[in-house]
């Protein structure tokens, strides 16, 4: 019944455009359009009655974004650039403003204030080993009159008092150290003598190999512990006896115990705290 393409080869053929034109002729009947209109009215009414959900507006809001792509992108790039430049810009040093002290000096200041506080706390303990730590030498170098070659400060209290008067010319750290020392000397002459003794040990220390001055963490902790522990009340006891006692205690304390003990003790500018 159907004509095969081969059997139709003799018949005139059409172009693709003409063939596709047949599709234009596929049209629904009039009844279809009547039914279409009825259904459309029903749907239109339903759509009018239907409450619009708020999230239906979201795609519409985003549909407007492509128009703003270029301005939004440019704004984002500018914002990122501004933030990056602001983040990495070096702080400018204004004339007349003293920059903050370097960390080492700051540490030294803290240590020196701690010395004064500890001296106030343990009045009868001149022989403890707190003294001035070796690290304070660089800060001492900034004090006028200090011997830079030997590390000796030449601790003359009168001179310190004079220095106090001239303190406006000194650096903040030197002023702080000098003020603390003067205050300590006024309150405790014993401590002043002790400090003077320590200065001679500093002289010796400076003559040694620099690496030998580097204390191990264990030694630092031990010294700190002994600094906080109550020293013998009798100040007349010899240094040798004290050293022997300390060594005994230290030999009985393991590293962990020592660390634990030290951790429990803390000191501030005006307080000593003990954790239990």
């Amino acid at each position: 019944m159907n004509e095969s393409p081969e059997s139709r080869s003799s018949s005139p053929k059409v172009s693709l455009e003409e063939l596709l034109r047949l599709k234009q002729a596929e049209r629904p009947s009039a009844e279809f359009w009547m039914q279409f209109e009825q259904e459309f009215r029903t749907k239109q009414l339903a759509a009018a009655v239907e409450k619009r959900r708020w999230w239906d507006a979201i795609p519409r809001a985003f549909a407007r974004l492509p128009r703003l792509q270029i301005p939004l992108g440019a704004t984002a790039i500018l914002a990122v650039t501004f933030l990056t430049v602001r983040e990495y810009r070096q702080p400018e040093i204004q004339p007349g403003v003293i920059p903050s002290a370097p960390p080492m000096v700051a540490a030294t200041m803290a240590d020196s204030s701690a010395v004064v506080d500890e001296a106030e706390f343990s009045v009868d303990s001149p022989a403890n080993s707190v003294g001035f730590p070796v690290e304070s030498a660089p800060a001492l170098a900034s004090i006028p009159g200090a011997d830079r070659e030997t590390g000796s400060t030449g601790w003359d209290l009168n001179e310190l008092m004079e220095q106090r008067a001239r303190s406006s010319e000194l650096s903040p750290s030197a002023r702080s150290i000098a003020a603390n020392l003067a205050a300590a000397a006024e309150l405790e002459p014993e401590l002043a003598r002790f400090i003077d003794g320590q200065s001679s040990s500093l002289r010796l220390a400076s003559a040694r190999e620099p690496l030998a001055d580097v204390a191990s963490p264990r030694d630092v902790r031990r010294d700190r512990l002994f600094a906080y522990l109550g020293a013998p009340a009798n100040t007349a006891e010899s240094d040798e006896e004290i050293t022997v006692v300390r060594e005994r205690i230290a030999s009985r304390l393991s590293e962990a115990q020592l660390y634990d003990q030290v951790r429990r003790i803390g000191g501030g500018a005006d307080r000593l705290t003990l954790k239990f």
Partner: protein
Amino acid sequence: MQAAPKALDKPLVASPERQQEADSDGVLVKRVQAGEVAAFDTLIRKYRERVFGVIYNMTSNREDAADLTQDAFIKAFQSINRFQGQSSFFTWLYRIAVNSTLTHLRKSRLRSFFSFEKINEEDKSAEVIDKLTDKAGVEREVLIKELQEKLNEAMQKLSTKHRTVVTLFEIDGLSHEEIADVVGCSVGTVRSRLHYAKQLLQSELEPYLRP
């Protein structure tokens, strides 16, 4: 390959008739935007057959085409206040219809079945059928049915993008620019898609075509 140059010979600018049509549509749209709902009925009657034709040729299913045409008009009515007249109303309406159809085709890719309208044998279509067969009566009917099936098969073998372009250009008679506006791509892309689609259709419908 032979048909491509012919397609490029078609006018690329909107014809005066199209411009006139767009202007009258603009007046109707303004009336709808002003609250005159009846003016939208005029627009529906004016474009429903064309919109249905596009959707029908894309889906090859009359029921789906009817539903999608109704949905397209409802969407257009709901959004008519956002229509700013940057493009002509019929381009805007076509865009809604084509996008809805493409979404529908994506969703129902696996459950597609065809239902055809009857070919109306009027002037041009009758000429084409006469060229293909000299028979009359039942045999002619059978040939038309067979041709219709072959045409739809060939169309369904195209991707949705290619089918859209062929439908809009060859069946609905839109220009390349108008298709680019409706589909949302460049004129070059439209031409390229059209060329590729025609190549495929020619290979599929070869027994019916002139060498």
